[in-house]
């Protein structure tokens, strides 16, 4: 594992990771990229009494998982399952109560923000609702360039390149988010996430707010980009069917624990945990109903 402490700019291989050279399809032995070990997170509810502390909420109760380089990894769970907490910890947006999160062999849990530049460059996020994750007062050009500016990198022709990659016209650069449809806004969010050439794209329910006809467009785009750029994909969803379409591996999160994980087809065809079975039975499918 190459060490690239503190000198992100002197690390061209890492920035363009994802380029075909490092992430070809022939990749027999995949190395672990994200390693989560025994992660717990306890929140305190606001106190309701002067004498006693607030109630403790165990959002994560000891979660371990490994995402390999180039893998498409799905995390499935319902609200309150702890999947959002897990995601925040993987992205180092929150600190765990105990346990570790390692990215490419480097511990990220509990690091101060100034030491996380390598992670901010290598791992980018697309959120569920592009209307609230894109600043309404910024033009698309500035939104897409912002991660580069934040990292102190030249923007150059990168914005046009990125807009083209996500299927938006170059003329989109001068417009504002509200001038686009939901699907187009999600394309902007994806272009922005890809700006610093990350290795990992984390997508938190990126298609749940979209209409079904547009959902396919975005899922196709994510699959294409993951192939072309050799991205590692961490895809969070409440819908196991969507995860099955896009991902190879899945972890089912329930009540702060991973109750089941493995190749998504195995989990789909032979769910081992009662909760996974309940989840599968609850999702109405056209095939099953007609």
């Amino acid at each position: 594992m190459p060490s690239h402490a503190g000198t992100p700019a002197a690390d061209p291989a890492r920035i363009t990771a994802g380029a075909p050279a490092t992430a070809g399809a022939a990749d027999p032995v995949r190395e672990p990229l994200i390693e989560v070990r025994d992660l717990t997170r306890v929140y305190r509810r606001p106190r309701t009494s002067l004498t006693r502390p607030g109630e403790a909420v165990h959002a994560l109760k000891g979660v371990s998982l490994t995402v390999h380089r180039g893998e498409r990894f799905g995390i499935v769970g319902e609200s309150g399952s702890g999947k959002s907490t897990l995601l925040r910890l993987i992205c180092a947006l929150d600190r765990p109560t105990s346990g570790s999160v390692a990215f490419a062999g480097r511990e990220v849990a509990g690091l101060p923000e100034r030491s996380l530049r390598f992670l901010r460059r290598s791992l980018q996020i697309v959120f569920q609702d592009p209307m609230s994750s894109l600043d309404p007062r910024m033009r698309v050009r500035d939104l897409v360039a912002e991660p580069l500016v934040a990292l102190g990198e030249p923007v150059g022709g990168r914005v046009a390149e990125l807009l083209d990659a996500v299927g938006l016209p170059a003329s989109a650069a001068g417009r504002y988010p509200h001038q686009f449809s939901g699907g187009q806004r999600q394309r902007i969010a994806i272009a922005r996430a890809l700006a610093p050439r990350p290795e990992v794209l984390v997508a938190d329910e990126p298609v749940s707010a979209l209409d079904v006809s547009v959902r396919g467009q975005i899922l196709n785009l994510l699959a294409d980009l993951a192939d072309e750029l050799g991205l590692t994909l961490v895809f969070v969803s409440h819908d196991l069917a969507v995860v099955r379409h896009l991902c190879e591996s899945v972890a089912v999160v329930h009540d702060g624990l991973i109750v089941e994980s493995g190749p998504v087809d195995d989990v789909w065809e032979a769910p081992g945990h009662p909760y996974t079975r309940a989840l599968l039975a609850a999702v109405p499918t056209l095939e099953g109903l007609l």
Partner: protein
Amino acid sequence: MLTVEGLSVRADDLELVREVSFGIGPGERVGLIGESGSGKSLTALALMGLLPDGVTASGTARLGGRDLVGVPERRLKDLRGRTVSMVFQEPMTALNPLMRVGAQVAEVMTLHGVAAGRARERAAELLGRVRLPDPERIARSYPHQLSGGQRQRVMLAIALANEPDLLICDEPTTALDVTVQKQMLELIAEVAPALLFITHDLAVVASLCERVLVMYGGRVVESGPLREVFKHPRHRYTEGLLAASRLAPRGTRLATIPGAVPAAGRFPGGCVFRDRCAHATETCATAPALTDPDLTGPEPRGDGHAFACWHPRR
């Protein structure tokens, strides 16, 4: 029971819903599907007399012999919440955060002339009927103390309080988890007197409804028995929606409908779908009427499967 004929909704010069006609019989469950911006919610709001200022409805809608469209607010007040009621998508914004849940259920009854004491009793009964555990305790809770699924059950209890003839649900399960959604759908199927169910989720409609109306660009483009429409869609939009709803195996492309739903007023003239349709020709510049070919053919069968398309599938 509900008969809607030529219902149109306008805002100034924009025609947002155009000439929508359908009926719902007693006990019937009808789904209204389409993407956001297709006019489904406006159709429902027009039936409830809840259109925003500056948006007006024309045409007729009659429920059990009473007009719902074009009548003064004071008459509508009498009907709304009694003859026809509605469950909205987001229960947190639809419930009063400062009022106990039981009082909110009772309020809709006292507004329609039920005595306060009797309304309170019935509120607890109703909360039990929508299968909330410990209804007495729930009645004393505030909305923020309940989960999303519980709040939506409270909304349903409010909607059912005066035994309406028709229940309208607008995406009532979209904000809920799938396991909670399943319970909610089963409950709605059980308690709804007659149902107009609005959703963008085809699988949800298929699990609940007997008949379906497909809307796009403010028009009904296809309608008929659900199985018939979903198994043998004729309109190209319905075909596209169904194809896009099926998740192909990993590594294969998903079917999509090119482009996006245009903003209101930006739909093309003629067939509203023609700018996104692979089969469109010059003929489509003329608007096709919603017709059931079985009725005009030599042997009318009349299962009620109608569509508005010049180049239907098959």
